[in-house]
């Protein structure tokens, strides 16, 4: 069931990481070109080139390793990511503790170059490698009454120095509505630039939901639970006024403390200019998921 979504963001010839390019990525590039030729959405793709490896791996929010942007890259190497088990439970036909290796054996890894928009109004373009969450959920067999998917990050105080402080209520938890989770854009990432995901970016397995603010894309996932009630989410528990369950990228709904109308692309240096933030971070294909919903209320 892979390859349901076609990449249109690749501009491989200008990335400094062309040495990482493999055949699949080059093919994806050709595919994207064809899609444009057929009249696919051309919006905002002109200068979307991936951020460098250095940018993506040195500027991270992963509070379990510290609240500074460079803390995760310094502290996360202590995290043991092998062996890794993901517990899939709740309203599924085949609950259990799945070894990551067994999961990966059944999944098709592909490249997805996605825009990444942080709630703090900065953004990057990231060339992820991963598989669709839908494939994993189908493997476990989602029961018909399930309506939501809850996720949990690994919690190991001895390996995660940031958890010594109650910055958030550990472990980090997130959630999606089932239709959001099953959307072909929703990815479980295992790599970056064709290389294994660095620990600071959520190794060995993280969620990527490109039309939502970055904190929804929970890192180092150890548990996935199907439920029929909306699951609690960490930032919403911490400050419900500022962080909603949906947290779709939306330039018309400001964060109470800053505007979300614009964003600063990382990599422009000291005199970087800002650019307009796009509704759903430019992924208009998800708009129908929210038909009839008041996005200002369900922020």
């Amino acid at each position, binding site marked *: 069931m892979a390859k349901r979504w076609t990449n249109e963001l690749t501009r491989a010839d200008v990335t400094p990481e062309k040495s990482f390019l493999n055949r699949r990525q080059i093919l994806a590039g050709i595919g994207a070109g064809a899609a444009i030729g057929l009249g696919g959405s051309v919006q905002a793709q002109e200068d979307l080139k991936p951020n460098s490896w*250095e*940018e993506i791996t*040195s*500027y991270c929010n992963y*509070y379990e390793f510290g*609240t500074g*942007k*460079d803390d995760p890259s310094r502290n996360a190497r202590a995290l043991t990511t092998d062996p890794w088990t993901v517990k899939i439970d709740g309203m599924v036909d085949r609950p259990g503790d799945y070894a990551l290796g067994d999961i990966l054996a059944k999944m098709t890894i592909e490249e997805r170059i996605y825009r990444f928009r942080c709630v*703090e109004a*900065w953004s990057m373009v990231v060339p992820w490698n991963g598989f669709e969450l839908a494939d994993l959920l189908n493997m476990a067999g989602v029961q018909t009454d399930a309506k939501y998917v809850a996720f949990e990050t690994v919690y190991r105080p001895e390996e995660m120095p940031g958890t010594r*402080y*109650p*910055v*958030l209520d550990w472990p980090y938890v997130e959630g999606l509505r089932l239709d959001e989770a099953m959307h072909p854009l929703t990815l479980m990432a295992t790599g970056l630039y064709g290389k294994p995901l660095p620990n600071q970016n959520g190794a060995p397995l993280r969620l990527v939901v490109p039309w939502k603010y970055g904190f929804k894309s929970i890192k180092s996932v150890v548990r996935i639970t199907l439920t029929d009630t909306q699951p609690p989410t960490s*930032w919403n528990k*911490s*400050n419900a006024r500022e962080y909603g369950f949906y947290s779709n990228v939306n330039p018309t709904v400001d964060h*109470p*403390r*800053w*505007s979300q109308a*614009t964003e*600063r692309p*990382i*990599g422009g*240096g*000291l*005199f*970087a*200019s*800002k650019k307009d933030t796009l509704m759903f971070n430019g992924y208009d294909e998800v708009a129908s998921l929210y038909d009839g919903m008041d996005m200002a209320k369900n922020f």
Partner: protein
Amino acid sequence: MVDRFNALARRLPTWAVYLIGVLPAPWFLYLGATGGLGVEPIKALEHELGALALQLLIFGLCITPLRRFAGVNLIKFRRAIGLLAFFYVFLHLLVWAILDVQVLSQIWADIVKRPYITVGMLGFAMLIPLAVTSNNWSVRRLGPTWRKLHKLTYVATVLGGVHYLMLVKGWQLEPLIYLLVIAAILSLRVKFQNLRHA
């Protein structure tokens, strides 16, 4: 030990403190321009300048208790410390407005709409009359009013600490430590005044 320190401080000319004090500004700018502040240098520069300003404000408030409780005399440098603090608050504000927000209409909207920015701006506004009157002529001219006016430093420093606490996400340790230190200095001040009135 304290005497030797005081003797050393007496020999240090004030202009040297000004000179050393302004050096971090070009240094941070250089770091930001050359990648030394990471891949997002604008927020980093803003943070470094703001933190330094708050540290200088706190240091300025420590000078009186240092003399009173430890016998360390740095009164001679208090004006320099205060003016340097103002200098860094001003640079912090400039970086925020010009490099960070960039849009004139949004700068004003942020000041009015975002409480943490309102609080920060209020603190900055209070420092302006203090910076303007940080000279011998004003001290003579204003007399006892000068001392009262300059008590605003306490308010401005508290606002600076609150501004920091309000802008971070979640409950972070660093701004709480700053506020704790500020609270400790204030309590020393209150305690001393009570002693004097008793």
